[in-house]
């Protein structure tokens, strides 16, 4: 009997070894450093250790930054949903003694870390020097080493930049941590203002102050402007506002001006205007002048979203009798219908990776977030609880931000591109809705 059990255990251990080995063999074979394949939804979270940084001179600020900086890296990596940051209590190494450039890899693999981040901090008056290193603990290799010099207040920016480098190295993604999220927050009926927060929903700042109902914000690729619909002049009009100066341009047309969406990498945007009698989609300059008409069709045509190369545009049309998502080739003008399941499909958002479109679908009386390949294949439902609307991809295509009523009032949530790790991110009173992720403003 005991022999039988032992045998089984032996087999199990053998199997695990085989799996681990093949994973690393594959990576080796692929070259310099192979990207981790995150298209596998079964992938477990990557365990990473982020001990406190090592203070180099004994300046009192260094101690604070050592803890704060390590925590920020840990939070940022965990935010992506792809990493699991190990508990400091399990660490066998004292970061104040260890050499950040030459870690004891075996001590780290023993705690279960696949990757390790070390840091060294030097503060001189208001000057901060931060050395950060990223290691593969099993391969015992340094993957990234960066030194950042700047003002002591730039700590968070340095941290974010380093995390971006990690994401680029492992997943081929860039720009998540420098991005921002724009959304609508309602303090009460008849009052909806637009807010801007960091990539993780922290530090929300109010950017419209007209006391009216403001809707559907969209951040420009240069990060300096926001387009939105506002009732400030008594009817739903399109505005384009320079965020810093608060100066807004009104797109002065009869009818409604709604669902603005920027062209990737350009200071141009598409929006739906109904001055011709029914809502059609137009291309506009950043000053609100019409360049040309993109979609000319009777009935409702709204909610444009461009492919990352700007050559195609997804949008919502009721031309077949119910709101569905269509894709128009901007060169040839050819229009193909994308969605065939369900009779209410709206709010398409094209992934910055180019291969998928997220959208909102009415399913069993509730709104849910769906993802579909641009070829129409691979339809997947990502949410199930409450009303979930307004999906928007992060600039690196790794996450989706959306609104959800699963807790009662509407709040802002994020999840990975596969629908895992769904959690609330913005902490504000009232109801929040219509989030949109910015293009990266990394410089």
């Amino acid at each position, binding site marked *: 009997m005991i022999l039988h059990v032992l045998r089984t255990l032996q087999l199990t251990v053998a199997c695990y070894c085989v799996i681990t080995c093949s994973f690393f063999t594959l990576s080796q074979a692929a070259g310099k450093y192979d990207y981790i394949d995150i298209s596998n939804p079964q992938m477990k979270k990557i365990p990473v250790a982020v001990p406190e940084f090592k203070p180099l001179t004994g300046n009192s600020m260094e101690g604070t930054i050592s803890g704060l900086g390590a925590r920020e890296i840990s939070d940022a990596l965990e935010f992506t949903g792809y990493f699991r940051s190990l508990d400091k209590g399990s660490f066998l190494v004292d970061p104040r003694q260890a050499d950040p450039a030459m870690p004891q890899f075996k001590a780290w693999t023993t705690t279960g870390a696949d990757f390790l981040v070390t840091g060294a901090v030097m503060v001189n008056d208001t000057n901060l020097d931060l050395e950060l290193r990223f290691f593969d603990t099993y391969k015992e290799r340094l993957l990234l080493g960066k030194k950042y010099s700047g003002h002591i207040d730039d700590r968070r920016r340095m941290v974010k930049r380093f995390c971006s480098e990690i994401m680029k190295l492992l997943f081929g993604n860039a720009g998540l941590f420098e991005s921002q999220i724009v959304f609508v927050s309602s303090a009460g009926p008849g009052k909806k203002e637009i807010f801007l927060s960091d990539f993780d929903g922290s530090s929300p700042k109010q950017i419209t102050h007209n006391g009216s109902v403001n809707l559907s914000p969209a951040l420009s690729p240069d990060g300096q402007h926001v387009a939105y619909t506002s009732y400030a002049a008594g009817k739903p009009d399109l505005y384009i506002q320079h965020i810093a100066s608060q100066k807004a341009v009104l797109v002065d047309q009869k*009818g409604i001006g709604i669902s603005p969406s920027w062209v990737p990498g350009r200071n141009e945007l598409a929006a739906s205007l109904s001055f011709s009698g029914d809502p059609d989609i137009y291309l506009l300059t950043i000053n609100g002048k019409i360049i040309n008409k993109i979609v000319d069709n009777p009935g*409702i045509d*709204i909610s444009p979203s461009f492919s990352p190369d700007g050559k195609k545009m997804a949008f919502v049309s009721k031309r077949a009798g119910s709101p569905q998502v269509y894709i128009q080739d901007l060169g040839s003008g050819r229009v193909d219908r994308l969605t065939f399941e369900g009779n209410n499909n709206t709010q398409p958002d094209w992934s910055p990776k180019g291969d998928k479109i997220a959208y909102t679908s009415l399913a069993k009386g509730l709104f849910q977030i769906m993802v579909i390949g641009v070829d129409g294949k691979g339809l997947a439902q990502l949410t199930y609880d409450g009303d979930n609307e307004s999906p928007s991809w992060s600039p690196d295509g790794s996450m989706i931000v959306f609104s959800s009523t699963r807790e009662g009032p509407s709040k802002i949530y994020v999840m990975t591109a596969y629908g895992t790790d769904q959690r609330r991110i913005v902490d504000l009173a009232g109801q929040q809705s219509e989030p949109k992720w910015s293009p990266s403003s990394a410089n």
Partner: protein
Amino acid sequence: MKKRMFVVLALMFVIPGLLFTASCAKKAVKSDAAVAAPSDDAAKKAAAEKAREEELARQKALEEARLKEEAAKREAMAARNKFMNENVYFAFDSSALDATAQNVLKDKAAWMKANPKEAVIIEGHCDERGTVAYNLALGERRAVACKNFLVNMGIPAASMTTVSYGKERPVDPGHNEQAWAKNRRAHFVIK
């Protein structure tokens, strides 16, 4: 002295005399009217009577006219209130006008024809389901559908403007079909 006394004496005779004359005269008239054909006084009375009757009639006519005017005002007020309070309702995700909707719009057309100087705002609204942008577009379709119907009934387009409120102004904040049905509406406002 003697003169004055004389005057007083005279007056003492004259005044009662006058009084007697008057009463005598009355008595004389009364007895005459009671017995004989109408004299001048009788005619005067008849005339006074007629005047009173005419006055009454005039008052009555005025009163009737006043009542009629007040009733008309009330009716006009009621029609005005009905115009503003009676909404056109829609099915989910639709801007089509069913038979009930068309009847409501016919009443609206009648009012607007009776009040050609009035300008009207037609508001389009949606229930809370569905996305902000889509509901803004749908709300506008509802308002425009009403306006087009009225234009076809002969109401000048220039007297009507449309505005969409999407799902931003529900009348019923409930989260059930009852509330939603109340919110899917076109609402008329007199400018």
